[in-house]
């Protein structure tokens, strides 16, 4: 019997896509259906980017309302509750819906190109990640429209404020379940990226030849798979506390609220590196290109990235120096935290070393990158300051900390992500963004950012606590707050111009050649924008900065190209099931939010777990259908002109998939 099965399997691959599974597989790869069923890492990357930019603007508007409220003392622009909701949603949105997905957009779009892969290892899982991210964002923001409104618990959601007794409304449940879906999105993405980077590198592309951005993608993915379980479990425990009467964090039953802080920061601290390491990767790509020099001390930068990631799991309690930890624990966590300054410093030294002796061109991506180094350095210094618990005792939960992490996350992550967007925009769209407008955006953002956040150092040291919706004039904080608000609006104008510019450039920008910056890494060797199959040939890598070597290096280090075999290039099929599975999860999570809650429009009906079960069944059906459908696949035959200089494929080989 086995042999019968075998011969069936080895039937020649059909030229047409396989129409298998419960539903017919979608074939149309344009329009709405094409987008909803796509498994192409590039389209998924663009989906992530658009979603993330939308949420960046949303979170930005929330921030501007916050700053407007704080512009003058004792203002009553918004209520205390609204303010608390705004800062909760601002933090959650920026971390989970803006910076992480924007990084994920680069992981998706750029990383497979950098390693010469046709797609990621599990294309449909990749689509699932995108849909979970978008639906998670929707779920979180749906809370605004239900009684009680958005959560007002802070992005850290310290128990027991999240207990039903203190936050009876559904907002907290929206927050819990929204984060669970977003966690799934991050996790499936991370498993996918790890497998892709480790397993799907082009021939010759050894780990120590990987572009730095790909390395940071790998380390970030490991951080995600190891950090997110902690928050997942903490959220499950909190959900049980709120819905099923357990006592994990409830003092009356013997629960310890401090446990929530530990579990949260076991996740939360690596999360900080999840936000910053991709940015460091982007910077490490851009600096060499515009200095026309290779990265200085590549092995050490890779190694320090790994060390930062590893140490990130050993320092979580430095967020809790004021919670009454013992002297030994405090000291240990303080010294471990200080250690992190060393690998971080290494990176800065090496970035300067990269530019040293180079030929620096100040294009927009380069300006953002240099701005990143300055701002990140500032954020690092304040980080060193509150790694010392006595200093932190004054700074914890004040605007000093707000200044610190905005220097790291805006001056750091956002600046780097903007650098990345300016840098890779020509690759993604085939069009250039205007350099002059780009510089205006940079200077507006740079000035606005510093004006908004530098005074916060002083506010913090002069005693202004975070998360307060107003303050008294006697405190002497009026002036700094005023200027800070002005700065925030300048920063907002900068970002607005950026959005206009990116839309304009998409339609009207100048056409870009495939390598407009004279770059160094593999993604610049394919078309702009890349074809569906990324590379018409299989690249065989012989050097770290392969594209640079091709242009300026010695003959021995030139890239070899292998033409596709006679079957053409194998491509995965599109699928509805990732979308359906994620909708099932969405329904299940929504059902958990509605559990035993009076829902508008259903005045009398109160749901138990019916909706959750329905959603889980839908998820299960989606997964089974997904598995039965199989990866499918079809073959494309690129125009031979695209691989004119390639050597023919060996007859029996499948080529590099």
């Amino acid at each position, binding site marked *: 019997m086995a042999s019968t099965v075998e011969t*069936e399997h080895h039937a020649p691959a059909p030229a047409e896509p396989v129409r298998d599974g419960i539903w017919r597989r979608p074939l149309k790869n344009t329009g709405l259906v094409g987008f909803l069923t796509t498994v192409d890492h590039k389209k998924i990357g663009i989906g992530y980017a658009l979603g993330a930019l939308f949420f960046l603007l949303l979170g930005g508007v929330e921030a501007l309302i916050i700053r407007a409220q704080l512009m003058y003392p004792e203002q009553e622009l918004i209520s205390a509750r609204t303010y608390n909701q705004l800062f909760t949603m601002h933090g959650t949105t920026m971390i989970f819906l803006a910076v992480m997905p924007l990084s994920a957009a680069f992981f998706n779009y750029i990383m497979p190109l950098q390693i010469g892969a046709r797609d990621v290892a599990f294309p449909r899982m990749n689509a699932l990640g995108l849909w979970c991210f978008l639906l998670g964002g929707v779920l979180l923001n749906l809370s605004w429209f239900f009684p009680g409104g958005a959560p007002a618990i802070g992005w850290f959601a310290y128990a027991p404020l999240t207990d039903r007794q203190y936050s009876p409304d559904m907002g907290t449940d929206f927050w819990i379940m929204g984060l669970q879906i977003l966690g799934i999105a991050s996790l499936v993405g991370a498993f996918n990226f*790890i497998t892709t980077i*480790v397993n799907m590198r082009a021939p010759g592309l050894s780990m120590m030849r990987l572009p730095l951005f790909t390395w940071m993608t790998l380390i970030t993915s490991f951080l995600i798979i190891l950090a997110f379980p902690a928050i997942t479990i903490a959220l499950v425990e909190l959900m049980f506390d709120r819905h099923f009467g357990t006592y994990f964090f409830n003092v009356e039953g013997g629960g310890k609220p401090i446990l929530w802080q530990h579990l949260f920061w076991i996740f939360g601290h690596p999360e900080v590196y999840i936000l910053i390491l991709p940015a460091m990767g982007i910077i490490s790509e851009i600096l060499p290109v515009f200095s026309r020099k290779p990265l200085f001390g590549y092995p050490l930068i890779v190694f320090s990235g790994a060390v930062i990631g590893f140490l990130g799991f050993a320092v979580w309690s430095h967020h809790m120096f004021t919670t009454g930890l013992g002297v030994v624990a405090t000291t240990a966590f303080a010294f471990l935290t200080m250690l992190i300054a060393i690998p971080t410093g290494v990176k800065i030294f090496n970035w300067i070393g990269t530019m040293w002796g180079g030929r620096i061109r100040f294009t927009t991506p380069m300006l953002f990158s240099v701005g990143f180094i300055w701002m990140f350095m500032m954020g690092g210094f304040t980080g060193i300051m509150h790694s010392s618990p006595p200093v932190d005792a004054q700074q914890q939960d004040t605007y000093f900390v707000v200044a610190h992490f905005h220097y790291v996350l805006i001056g750091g992550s956002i600046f780097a992500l903007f650098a990345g967007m300016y840098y890779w925009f020509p690759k993604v769209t085939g069009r250039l963004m205007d350099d002059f407008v780009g510089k205006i955006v940079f200077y507006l953002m740079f000035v606005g950012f510093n004006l908004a956040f530098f005074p916060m150092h002083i506010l913090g040291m002069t005693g202004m606590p975070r998360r307060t919706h107003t303050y008294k004039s006697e405190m002497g904080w009026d002036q700094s707050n005023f200027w800070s608000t002005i700065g925030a609006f300048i920063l907002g104008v900068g970002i607005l111009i950026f959005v206009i510019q990116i839309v304009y450039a998409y339609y009207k920008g100048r056409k870009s050649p495939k390598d407009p910056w004279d770059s160094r890494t593999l993604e610049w060797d394919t078309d702009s924008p890349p074809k569906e199959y990324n590379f018409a040939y299989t690249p065989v890598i012989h050097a770290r900065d392969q594209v640079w070597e091709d242009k300026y290096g010695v003959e021995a280090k030139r890239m070899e190209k292998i033409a596709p075999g006679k079957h053409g290039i194998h491509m995965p099929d599109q699928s509805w099931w990732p979308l359906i599975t994620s909708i099932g999860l969405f329904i299940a999570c929504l059902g958990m939010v509605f559990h035993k809650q009076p829902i508008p429009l259903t005045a009398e009906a109160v749901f138990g777990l019916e909706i959750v079960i329905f959603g889980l069944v839908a998820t299960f059906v989606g997964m089974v259908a997904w598995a039965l459908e199989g990866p499918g696949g079809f073959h494309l035959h690129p125009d031979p002109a695209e691989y004119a200089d390639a050597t023919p494929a060996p007859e*029996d080989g499948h080529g590099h998939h």
Partner: protein
Amino acid sequence: MSSHAANTDDPHAALEPLKKTSTGIENKKLAMWAFLASDCMFFGTLISTHLIYRKVYPTVVEPTEFFDIELTGFSSFILLMSSLLMALSVSAAHKGNIAGMRRFLLGTIFFGLIFLSGQVYEFNHFVKDAGLTLSSSVFGSTFYVLTGTHGVHVALGVLWLSCWTACSLPKDWAWYTLRGGRFLWLPIRVIFAPMVGRYKHENALDVEVAGLYWHFVDIVWIVIFTAVYLVEYLPILGF
């Protein structure tokens, strides 16, 4: 290197194209190991929650009064045996012995179900006789959520392996050979009927990956068995 890959008489060779990755490890297997690394943190967090509360409140409940260590020991035995069958099943799958693989898979599922029944019985006993519920004490909260999460893992594993068992049935498998009430079999048929006859030798990898998951659930139980059950019998310990 893969000149014999085209030799279709050799079922082992059918797996060769899957191994054409940079590391020689199949994508699915690597992703599963990464998932298991991640799952270590899941259960690590749950187990720490339980142990922390046991340590902080060592005398609030006396679990040994209602624990039935013989039953739990038997459950451990069952899971270990199921792991053996799973390993044999993967081995059979790699040899291309589909019938053998299916037999061992059925055995694994059977043992998994026994384990689950044991857990249901145990929970029932704790709730009814010992009055231990989710909200009776923080011990109840941590105990049920920890062992319950493990139980859900086992149940998902049973479901997963059932799918592969159904897939491994021959295409001409006659459902009427299964005796039983129509209503019992109907949902099972609806779910599993589309899978019948789909197993191909290249799916040996999928069975192996499902097996990795199953073994992991087993080793989590090894830890839970010691950390949650056995140490309770050492009264002087507060860890």
